[in-house]
């Protein structure tokens, strides 16, 4: 009880910082999932008839995800300096794989007989893609976007180490001051609001998936 009270006291005087860092995290989530999604979907579409290129792109995207995050955030500093830019690039590279993997899987999962009949009725390759494959793959693609968005919320906490802002600022400042007063309150603030943010984004994207998926493809 005591702890909750002191956390509340800590928060009540830091509303501005909280709003600012949440805004920064949201900016990462929006810009990173948007751009990574666009790239991943484009790659998935362009390589849909080329199995080798498809596997190669998946392999490259997988490599990004295996690089330790602390390293990935810092290696771009010499080129991009500190702040938003190196953080954005690191998060962007991470976010590609979930969307790419799901886009590829979604497009591949469209039944061969459906494609055969679409082609047999005289649909062009482009029409098959836009009217049949993408609508059917859409829920799977969106599930990939959701994973990337959540991944970005959690990993963006590291951006604070390269002066990139976000909810990680609370965690870093708390860590630096252990065991001084308010250190754990700061860490808890970063963690709890990251979780709430992730939860909110998850619900929002699930709703988007519901609204935009054609009834028969659900």
């Amino acid at each position: 009880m005591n702890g909750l009270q002191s956390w509340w006291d800590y928060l009540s005087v830091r509303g501005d910082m909280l709003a600012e860092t949440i805004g920064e995290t949201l900016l990462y989530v929006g810009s990173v999932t948007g751009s990574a999604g666009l790239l991943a979907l484009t790659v998935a579409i362009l390589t849909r008839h080329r199995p080798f290129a498809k596997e190669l792109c998946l392999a490259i995207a997988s490599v990004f995800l295996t690089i330790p995050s602390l390293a990935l955030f810092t290696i771009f500093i010499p080129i991009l300096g500190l702040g938003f830019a190196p953080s954005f690039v690191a998060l962007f590279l991470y976010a590609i794989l979930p969307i790419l993997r799901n886009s590829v899987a979604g497009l591949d999962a469209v039944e061969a007989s459906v494609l055969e009949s679409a082609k047999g009725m005289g649909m062009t390759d482009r029409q098959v893609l836009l009217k049949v494959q993408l609508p059917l793959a859409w829920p799977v693609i969106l599930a990939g976007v959701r994973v990337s968005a959540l991944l970005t919320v959690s990993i963006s906490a590291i951006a604070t180490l390269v002066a990139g802002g976000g909810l990680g600022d609370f965690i870093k400042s708390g860590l630096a001051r252990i065991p001084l007063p308010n250190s754990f309150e700061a860490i808890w603030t970063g963690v709890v609001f990251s979780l709430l943010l992730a939860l909110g984004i998850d619900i929002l994207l699930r709703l988007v998936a519901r609204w935009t998926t054609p009834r028969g493809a659900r």
Partner: protein
Amino acid sequence: MTEPLIRLEEVTKIYPGMEDPAVETLNLAVEPGEILVLVGPSGCGKSTTLRLINRMIEPSSGRIIYEGEDVTRGDPNELRRRMGYVIQQVGLFPHRTIAENIATVPRLLKWPDKKCRARADELLELVSMDPATYRDRYPRELSGGQAQRVGVARALGADPDVLLMDEPFGAIDPITRDRLQNEFLRLQGELKKTIVFVTHDVDEAVKMGDRIAILRERSEIAQLDTPERILTNPADDFVGNFLGSGAILKTLTLRRVGDIELSSVPLLRPPVDREQALRLLEETGERNALLLDRAERPLRWVDRRALNSFRGNLDAARPSVSVLVQPEDTLHDALSGMLQNSMGCAVVTDRGGKYLGVCTIESLAQLLIDTGKEAEASRA
């Protein structure tokens, strides 16, 4: 002779990396308004041949002529929109309603919305599905048989002259298949489309085909003729083996009950007088008489024992004649019916149920013997 609607000229298809061609210098002409069935063992290239027609597979060499025009080059999509295409797995679009599925080609051809909707309803009616019930449903709510009806309706979407059908009823249970085949033949009676139909099932080929092309490896035509002539006069051992031992028996599916002379049996009409009935059996030497009701509909079979043991009113009996056929049914239907009861004959009625005569197992046997003799004679 009319100009064929579709012609394959010296068409060869060699798949990349394969040494042997799947189809080798094939010449085939499809006449307008006919159902041409391509049948053969698996791997003979019958599906490949069908898919060459709408260029789902591009020929390695040779020409495809459609409506007198060389369509071997040019836009394949434009060609495919002029031909209906039905495949075994149907391939309906799961994310689109039944009506939207059916209107696929009309939409590709940019028909106005209202016309597309009207067309979908019209086609649902045509394949015996209620538009109000089905137009807004999704494919996964349909049974296999219903899905293929929609598949056929979709292929007819923009009223093409040609239907290409690749084992359309192959994945459907036998009873539903039989019904779909009959419905499709009735439909074809009205529509008079030109149909190329692929199957591996000889019985289906005999039933559906105006002409049958029996194919062997590399899509070589072993025999191309009417079902009657192929069944009674197979060109060589390959065809004979492929048709199987019951080839003559299969001719029964080609003839209708109405085509043969019906036999008669002693008839009883209400009110039945027992003495008179017994005398009738005595005089005719038959074991059974057929009791009709007041509207001349067959009611039940009556034999001596029934007459002797039955107390009460015979004509009050419930209808119990189990095998009833109509003149439009095939002799094969009549035979299967006869095998299910012990009477050795099937009662023939008109559509209203009125008695016309009986079709006996002896008359079928005689017919088969005659057919066999004719076949023998034409071979000699």
